[in-house]
């Protein structure tokens, strides 16, 4: 890992009312590193990701991105967010704008780029995700996989240093997942710093430099994919992976355990 991590999370806590979702997270993501965050639902992995670009305000702790403290009260959060691309589970394309306008409007309004420059960068990024022919379509006419690739292109058009992915394939039909993962793999190969919350174990195993397993608001295990997925040292990780990899074999669990 390089000397200054691109993302640095220090002793992060987050509560929603009485519900303590993050309970002391420490995490570093180096430049060009791809980190997959896995864990059962409710483990706080999405909340952690959303704290990195301050969509959620942490209760306690620090987050630094590219040396800037995101959690500092006087930070220009809009300026910091320009350096962080985010991709959502529900795509969140702007439905009243065409695909190209989805890519050009943020560039023009936020980065103050000129009309031609924005259009050129939009076309370039649509080509990267393989959707040049959909430039004039509206989001509603696209498949989920296409919408998600447009959402990735929209984030890339802003020239981010870091990309955050919040379960990018969870809302997709199984046969559409591959196209989105292929785009993400391409980004990883190009050296983009990526933090990916996902349930796609194959992707995590093959693309991630590190895999982080979270449960109950803490990081249980952090290591290479071979360590965490291939040979987990904690019982909780093993249990989670066995249920994920072979859901049909799971036993009926007692219900009192959960909240």
């Amino acid at each position, binding site marked *: 890992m390089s000397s200054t991590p691109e993302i640095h999370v220090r002793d992060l806590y987050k509560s929603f009312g009485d519900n303590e979702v993050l309970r002391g997270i420490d995490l570093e993501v180096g430049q060009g590193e791809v980190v997959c965050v896995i864990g059962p639902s409710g483990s706080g992995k999405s909340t952690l990701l959303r704290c990195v670009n301050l969509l959620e305000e942490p209760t306690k702790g620090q987050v630094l991105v590219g040396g800037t403290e995101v959690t500092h009260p006087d930070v220009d959060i*809009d300026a910091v967010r320009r350096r962080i691309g985010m991709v959502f589970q*529900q795509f969140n394309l702007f439905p009243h704008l065409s695909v190209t306008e989805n890519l050009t409007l943020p560039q023009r309004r936020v980065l103050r780029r000129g009309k031609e420059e924005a259009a050129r960068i939009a076309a370039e990024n649509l080509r990267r995700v393989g959707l040049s022919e959909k430039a004039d379509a509206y989001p509603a006419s696209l498949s989920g996989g296409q919408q998600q690739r447009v959402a990735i292109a929209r984030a890339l058009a802003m020239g981010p240093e870091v990309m955050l992915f919040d379960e990018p394939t969870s809302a997709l039909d199984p046969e559409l997942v591959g196209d989105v993962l292929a785009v993400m793999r391409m980004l990883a190969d190009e050296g983009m710093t990526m933090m990916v919350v996902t349930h796609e174990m194959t992707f995590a195993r093959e693309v991630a430099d590190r895999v982080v397993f979270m449960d109950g608001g803490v990081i249980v295990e952090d290591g290479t994919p071979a360590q965490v997925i291939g040979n987990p040292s904690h019982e909780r990780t093993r249990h989670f992976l066995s249920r994920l990899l072979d859901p049909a074999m799971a036993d009926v669990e007692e219900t009192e355990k959960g909240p």
Partner: protein
Amino acid sequence: MSGADAQVQPRKSGLTRRQKRALSRGAQYVVFVAAVIALAVTADWGRLKNQFAQWDLVKQMFPDVITLALKNTVLYTMSGFVFGLVLGMVIALMRLSPVGPYRWLAGIYIEIFRGLPALLIFVFVGVAVPLAFPGTEIPGGTYGKVALALGLVSAAYMAETIRAGIQAVPKGQMEAARSLGFSHARAMVSIIIPQAFRIVIPPLTNELVLLFKDSSLVLFLGVTLEERELTKFGRDLASQTANSTPILVAGLCYLLVTVPLGFVVRRLEAKAGEATK
């Protein structure tokens, strides 16, 4: 025979469900036809025709009823609608503001102006405003006063509609905009409000129909001959001629606008319903 059988088998003593349905529908037709006949027989058509359908009076009303009265009605309505839309937008944003006093102020405004009859607002604008601010003229004369009165009333309704529209835009839209680096205000203007407006176009058009009718209240402000709108125009002519035909014509002129508008609203609603599917 078991209990389950009794429900599906037609009972020998009574009628089947189908027969009952036919009988009930037949009875409704009978009542309807009887009511129409009773109305047609008992009404005094001759006197009605005399009072409401004098053809030469109808001819006498044209073209002023269109070029003056209908034109003024449309002018009053549109100016009130535009003023109300701008004010309603501001109040809706105040209502969603994180600043407490703004929210309270907007809430109080909405409660007051939604709760008062439009007529009282017209009287208030006509009498109280000149009293409270002596020497100040509302710009635009009667047109300005009507725009103010109609705007004040409709802003309260439109504020609530627009607020609901803004809140109907999925939360993810704001999050996506913010994560791209939009400020809250810029995201509102570029992303949220354009989508909210698509949602509220049908109810806003409905509000336009209501305003169109409320514009008749202008007669309580006192208007010159050139400023008369449909209702005042019809009433004046009716009292001059001691005949109600002008009122019927004025009424038909309202329908000339409200019926197509209502049609447009239904089309827009159907389209909006399709889009959200």
